[in-house]
C-alpha cells in the first residue's frame, strides 16, 4: 500500500499544497517551524481520521479560517482509493472513501495502517500508564473491530457508572441494586479486554525483543509485563468489595482502565533504570514491532512516518535504522529533516528512489535533486 499524492487546503500553516509522492522514500526538508511535521500529521489524518499530535480538530485549521480539507489517493495493492477528510468549525468531521461518506470514524480505522516514530515518543516510557494504554489500544483497535467495539462499550459504561457514583455521593446513599447493572457490564468487558490485551502481548513481545536486539548494540534482555488485576480468579469479588472505596473516591477503582504495560530492562523497570539511549532504542523497537504486527495481520506494509529522527538519534541508531530501509524491510517512507545535505547523504547510500520536498513558510515545493 502507498499514498500517491496529497492535496491540502487551510490545514495548519498550509493555505494550499499539492504534491505527488514516491512509492519509496519521501523526505520533507526545511528549517524548524516551517511545517514539515504538519505534512506527516496530514497523512496521519487520512489513515486514522485524526491528528497524531493535536487531538482538537479545530486547532488544526489555518489561522483565521473556518475549515480544512485533506485529500489523498492511495494505492491498495493495485486498487485505487481516494480519501477525503473535511473539517469545518462547529460541524462534524467528515471522511469520504472514494466519494462515499463513512458513517462512523471507527469504520475507517484499520483500513490504512500507519506507524509514526517521533522524537518525543519517550513519553511512552516516562509518562503515566494512560500513554501506554493509548498506544496499545490504538494498535489493537486497528487490528480488531471486536476489540474496538468492546473498548467503546467499556468507556461508555465506565462514564455511566462514574456519573452514578457521583449522584450516590451527593445523596449520601449507595444503591447496590441500581449500580449492579453497570458492575456486570464493566466486569464482563474488563475480562474480555484484558484477555485480548494479554494475548496480544504474547504475540507482540517476541517482535519487540527481536527489533531491540537489531537496533541496539548491547545484548541486554528486555520485556513487557502486562499488569492487570482483571484476570485474577476473584476479580469479580474484588470489584464488588471495592464499592466502599469507589463511594469515597467518587470513581471506579477496578477495571481495565487501571491496567499498565510495564517495560523492563534486565527485569527492572526501564523507566527508572534505562539510560537515555536504551530508552530511545526501546521506543523505536516498540514502533518497529508495531510495523511488523500490522504487516503480518494486514498483509500490507504500513506507511512509516519518521519525524526528525536524524537529529534526535545518534549515528549508530540511524545507521541501524537505515540498514532496515536499505534491506527493503519497509514500504513507503516519509521523513522530515531540517538539514537537506545530511538526509541527502544518508539516503544516497540506499538503493531506493527518494524524492525531496522543500518546505518554506507553509509552501511545499519539489526540490531539485
Amino acid at each position, binding site marked *: 500500500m502507498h499514498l500517491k499524492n496529497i492535496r491540502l487546503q487551510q490545514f495548519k500553516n498550509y493555505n494550499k499544497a499539492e504534491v505527488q509522492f514516491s512509492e519509496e522514500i519521501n523526505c520533507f526538508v526545511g528549517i524548524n517551524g516551517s511545517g514539515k511535521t504538519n505534512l506527516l500529521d496530514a497523512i496521519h489524518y487520512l489513515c486514522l481520521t485524526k491528528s497524531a499530535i493535536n487531538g482538537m480538530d479545530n486547532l488544526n485549521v489555518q489561522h483565521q479560517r473556518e475549515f480544512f480539507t485533506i485529500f489523498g489517493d492511495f494505492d491498495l495493492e493495485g486498487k485505487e482509493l481516494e480519501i477525503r477528510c473535511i473539517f469545518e468549525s462547529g460541524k462534524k468531521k467528515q471522511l469520504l472513501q472514494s466519494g462515499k461518506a463513512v458513517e462512523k470514524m471507527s469504520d475507517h480505522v484499520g483500513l490504512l495502517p500507519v506507524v509514526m516514530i517521533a522524537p518525543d515518543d519517550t513519553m511512552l516510557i516516562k509518562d503515566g500508564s494512560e500513554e501506554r494504554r493509548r498506544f496499545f489500544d490504538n494498535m489493537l483497535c486497528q487490528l480488531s473491530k471486536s476489540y474496538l467495539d468492546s473498548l467503546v*462499550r467499556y468507556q*461508555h*459504561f465506565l*462514564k*455511566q*457508572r462514574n*456519573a*452514578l457514583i457521583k*449522584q450516590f455521593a451527593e445523596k449520601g446513599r449507595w444503591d447496590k*441494586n*441500581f449500580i*449492579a*447493572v*453497570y458492575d*456486570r*457490564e464493566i466486569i464482563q468487558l474488563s475480562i474480555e479486554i484484558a484477555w485480548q490485551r494479554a494475548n496480544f502481548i504474547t504475540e507482540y513481545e517476541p517482535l519487540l525483543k527481536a527489533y531491540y536486539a537489531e537496533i541496539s548494540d548491547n545484548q541486554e534482555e528486555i520485556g513487557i509485563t502486562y499488569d492487570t488485576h482483571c484476570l485474577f480468579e476473584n476479580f469479580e469479588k474484588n470489584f464488588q468489595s471495592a464499592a466502599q472505596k469507589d463511594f469515597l473516591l467518587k470513581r471506579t477503582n477496578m477495571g481495565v482502565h487501571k491496567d499498565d504495560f510495564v517495560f523492563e530492562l534486565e527485569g527492572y523497570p526501564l523507566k527508572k533504570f534505562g539510560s537515555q539511549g536504551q530508552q530511545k532504542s526501546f521506543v523505536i523497537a516498540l514502533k518497529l514491532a508495531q510495523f511488523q504486527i500490522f504487516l503480518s495481520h494486514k498483509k500490507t506494509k504500513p506507511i512509516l512516518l519518521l519525524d526528525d529522527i536524524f537529529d534526535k538519534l545518534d549515528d549508530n541508531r540511524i545507521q541501524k535504522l537505515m540498514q532496515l530501509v536499505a534491506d527493503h524491510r519497509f514500504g513507503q517512507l516519509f521523513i522530515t529533516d531540517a538539514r537537506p545535505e545530511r538526509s541527502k547523504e544518508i539516503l544516497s547510500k540506499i538503493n531506493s528512489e527518494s524524492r525531496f520536498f522543500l518546505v518554506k513558510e507553509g509552501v511545499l515545493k519539489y526540490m531539485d535533486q
Partner: protein
Amino acid sequence: MNFPSKLIENAVNEISKLPGIGKKTALRLALHLLKQKETFTEDLSASLLALRKEVQYCNSCFNISDEPVCSICTSQKRDKSIICVVEDIPDVLAIENTSQYQGLYHVLGGVISPIQGIGPDDLKIEALIQRVANKQTEDKIEEVILALPATMEGDTTSFFITRRLKEFGIKVSTIARGIPIGGELEYTDEITLGRSILTRVNYSAD
C-alpha cells in the same frame, strides 16, 4: 431573518420551536395559515389546546388515552397475561402497526442513563413492578417482553428490570434479535419488528 411584521415574527419564532422545523419552514407554514380561511386556524389551535389540556395517560400502561384506562388495557380481545415494555409512545404505535402482538403494554417514558441524570425513579419502572405484583392472584401476568432500544442504555434498562422481576418467577424475554444494533424501534420496519416479537428470546438476570 428580518420580518415586515411583528405578528409574523412572533408566529415564526413559536412554530420554529417544534422539532425538525427551521425558520424558513416556519415562515412557509405561517404564510400558509394566512392564505386559509380563519376557521382553519381556529380549528387547528382549538385542537392543539384541547390536546394539551385534556390529554390523559392510561393509569395502567401510561400510553396516551382519552379515558383513565386506555382502549388497549380495557379491550376484551387482548391477552392480559403478557406485558410488552417500551421506551415511549411511538413504540406502542410501531408495534400495533405490525398486528402481530395481542398483549398489553407498559410505557417507561425513557431509559436509564446516569450521565443524563435519568434513574429508575424518573421512569415508570416501579409501576411496572406493581402491575406484576398486584396481579399475582387473579389475571396473572405470565410474561414480560422487553422491547427497549438495542442501545447500551436500552440494554442496561432491560437488565435492571429483569433483576427486579426475578422474584416473581415469570418469563422475561427480549426482542433484541433482528433489530440492528443501535437501532430504535420507531425506525425498524414493520416486518422485522413483527418477526422479532414472535421470535423473542428468554432473558436472564445472571
